[in-house]
């Protein structure tokens, strides 16, 4: 079985239980208050195998075989990234701003993201060194990465009937580390007589010297718009949305550097070969020698906003928290992170019984390639539901790439 065989097998599973679905789709009693907690964590890559990533995470010795395996998967389009997010959402009331169609909504979230795309030579330099490039150039660019962490408190309105909403949030930036290399040709002269870098790139980071929690302040909006329509003579639903469309203005002790020049490094300059006592090689000294010293000051960056759209088809289920769910969902999403490709997924939900619903699907994009989706949702009476989902079921198997888990808990009353 080739590497795409297993995902397709998962996709076929729902057809075996399709006949049960009609009998369980029914309206739920209305509630006026809803509390939902969503926690998700995922990393993915189209080239880095889990043994490498977990080795980096867990520590210890990374063998050459592990590093070489990912190296062998490299191509022109190497991507990786992760997301860690937790969000608590509360909606309440029968009316808001004087309109009965709306209710109030607030949310609190903590999110961290990393996205990168990188040249194969950048990986080779990082994991094998530059000796293999003796007397030739390594093409380190184009490469880019962005790592950002932030917290957000948001307030808004939600439409009762469709779940459409608009939120405006205040964002606290706690971490930024980002770089973009448009060109970086690193030439290593024989026996390292000198190293030359033809560099065009930039780097920015929030102040890491300060211990304070807030290193930048910003704002963002999130919205979801849902609209019912008829498609192929069936009820359908189109949903468009964005999350975290906004910015963070980082504090004035933030650091940045931009360079577009040819840098030649022949070693740190010493007063004399016989007077090296006390000569210390450190990062700052090296940076200054290369003319890559930081500039301190304010700057703003966009948040890694998520844009998405989906079409729901097939039988409709009304969840007790007001959500309308179709049996089939086709979704396209894109997050503003380096290395992130539009993520396309198709999911099918079917019910095992009154309390249990199962989701299977396929996805492609994001930081990875073809992935299998699996999910399970359990309702406890008319007030509680729990869901667990993975966007990468095969990631838990040996020899694959990426891992992803999502947990949801919802309470309505």
């Amino acid at each position, binding site marked *: 079985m080739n590497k795409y065989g297993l995902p397709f097998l998962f996709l076929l599973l729902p057809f075996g239980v399709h006949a049960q679905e009609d009998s369980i789709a029914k309206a739920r009693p209305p509630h006026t208050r809803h509390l939902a907690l969503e926690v998700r964590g995922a990393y993915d890559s189209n080239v880095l195998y889990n043994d490498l990533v977990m080795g980096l995470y*867990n520590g210890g010795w990374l063998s050459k075989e592990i590093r070489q395996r990912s190296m062998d998967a490299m191509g022109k389009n190497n991507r990786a990234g992760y997301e860690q997010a937790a969000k608590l959402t509360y909606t309440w009331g029968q009316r808001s701003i004087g309109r009965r169609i709306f209710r109030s909504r607030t949310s609190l979230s903590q999110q961290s993201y990393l996205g*990168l795309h990188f040249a194969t030579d950048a990986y080779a330099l990082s994991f094998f060194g*530059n000796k293999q490039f003796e007397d030739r150039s390594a093409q380190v660019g184009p490469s880019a990465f962005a790592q950002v962490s932030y917290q957000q408190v948001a307030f808004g309105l939600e439409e009762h009937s469709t779940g459409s909403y608009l939120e405006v949030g205040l964002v606290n930036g706690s971490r930024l580390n980002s770089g973009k290399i448009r060109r970086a040709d690193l030439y290593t002269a024989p026996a390292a007589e000198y190293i030359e870098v033809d560099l065009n790139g930039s780097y920015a980071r929030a102040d890491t010297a300060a211990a304070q929690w807030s290193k930048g302040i910003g704002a963002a909006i999130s919205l979801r718009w849902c609209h019912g329509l008829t498609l192929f003579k069936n009820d359908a639903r189109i949903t468009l949305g964005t999350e975290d469309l906004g910015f963070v203005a980082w504090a004035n002790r933030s650091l940045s550097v931009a360079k577009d020049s040819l840098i030649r490094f*022949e070693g740190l300059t010493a007063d004399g*070969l016989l007077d090296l006592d006390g000569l210390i090689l450190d990062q700052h000294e090296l940076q200054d020698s290369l003319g890559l010293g930081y500039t301190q000051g304010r700057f703003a960056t966009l948040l890694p906003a998520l844009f998405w759209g989906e079409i729901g088809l097939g039988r409709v289920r009304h969840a007790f928290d007001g959500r309308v769910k179709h049996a089939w969902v086709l979704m396209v999403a894109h997050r503003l992170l380096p290395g992130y490709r539009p993520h396309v997924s198709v999911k099918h939900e079917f019910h095992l019984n009154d309390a249990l619903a199962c989701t299977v699907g396929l996805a492609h994009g994001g930081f990875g390639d073809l992935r299998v989706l699996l999910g399970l949702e359990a309702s406890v009476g008319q007030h509680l539901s729990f869901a667990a989902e993975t966007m990468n079921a095969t990631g838990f198997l040996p020899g694959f790439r990426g891992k992803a888990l999502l947990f949801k808990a919802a309470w309505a009353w």
Partner: protein
Amino acid sequence: MAACTTLAACQKDRPKPQWDLDVLAPLIQTSLTIGDLVPDTMLATDGSGQVSILHTFELFSLSLDTVLTAPDTSFRYAYALPFPGPIQFQPGVTFDASDEVTRFDLDDLQLSKLIVRSGQVDVAITNMMNGHIIGDFALPGAQLEGEPFQVLMALPPGTPAAPSNTTSSRPLNGYVFDMRGPALNQVNSLATHLSYSNAPNGSTISITNMDSLLATVSYHGIVPEYALGYFGMRTIQVEPATTRLDLFENVSGTLDLDQVDATVKIRNGLGVDAKATIHHIRSLNTRTGTEVPLIASFTNNPVNIDRAADMGSTFSPSVKNIALDQGNSNIKQFLENLPDQIGYALDVTINPMGNISNGHDFLYHDSRVTAELEVNIPLRLSATGLSLRKVMEVDLPGTADAHAWQYGTMHLFAQNGFPFSAAIELAVVAPDGQSISVLAPGGTIPSATLGANGLVTEMADGRLDFRINSAQMNLLHLSGKVQVTAVFNTAEQPQHVQLLDSYRMDLKLTLDGNYVVNGDE
């Protein structure tokens, strides 16, 4: 690498990930000039860029204590009734007063004046009288800013069986001693006054010839600031001794200088005429065990040295210059021995013609008789195996057990603009400085190309490699010391070569090594 850093940063208690890289990296670039071989302060350059070493080093020095020492001295003064008694004294009555002359034993010195730089006097009085006594000890001939020295001491009552003891110590710093005595016609003599009285607020005391007072006056640690008088005619023997010479420190091999000029400068800071008889001055190379005695006119015949001039509060030394060159001495061979020590032995006779100053010999605390050798060595030379060695502290991250650099090869790129070749050896040395492992293979950087005029016309390129294996890397992290030895040779040149201040050697040190990421943790 950013992703790796990020993932590693997520860890709290887990070990950091490690992997090895084969790294090629430039480390250091520098230029070696003559100023790096010889300290700039010793170098002089003429208009044509030719370089000379100008260096002065001390041959010997005779300080004040070889001429004048003031030994610790004690004097005792006793008082008792010359008849059986008893006799009564009313309160406030002085019952004994004596003015005496204290004569110091200073051998051949005849001092008329002494200014004390530091020192102290201790006065101890034993009282066997049954009453409160006031003791008054004074030195009328010792004054500080016009005030005579005086000590008043309250002596508690005592008995012959149980006397009371009272002591008082006073510094003498800055006191001017008139050593001519009370009549101003003696030497080494100091007027002294000692008296006793019944305390004014005490009671009448009755004493017999069994009751007595005993005073002991001790002078300690007297260091003269200035002394005036006749210092006597005597010969001071300076036993064989050595002084250290750093000019050729860490240098070995064979050096052939084209020309050397030198001057022996004898300075006399003492206010006495002197005659120096130099028994020997030797160039000592303790590394090779060779010594070369200096042969010159002054090493065979006594050298008369004039006295310094007293300027009132300081002095002006007399200076005697004796020029040495290859025509009148063996100074060239003396220096080519690359001495690290100078050995000497001599006699100095002061006042060889007697008291011709009429008692006006003088000295200050800083007065010295010194001899210096001032050398002028034009750097026109030939060198064979001339070796320069230095141990460097290398501040490497990590420990002997955990370090990032594992093994590799260091490459030394050189562009040599000196007219000599340089064989370079690197070695890891133990904490005690002993070489314990040589980094092979090393090699020789070729000499620059010389033109017909004997000057460099073209720099020469060279590259040396030094392999360092895992064991050597461990040793290096353990000791943190590297010894660099450079051996210079002008053997390719038939004649002496002239060094110019523009000559230099450009060096780059690079490393081809195996590096473990987070290996320092």
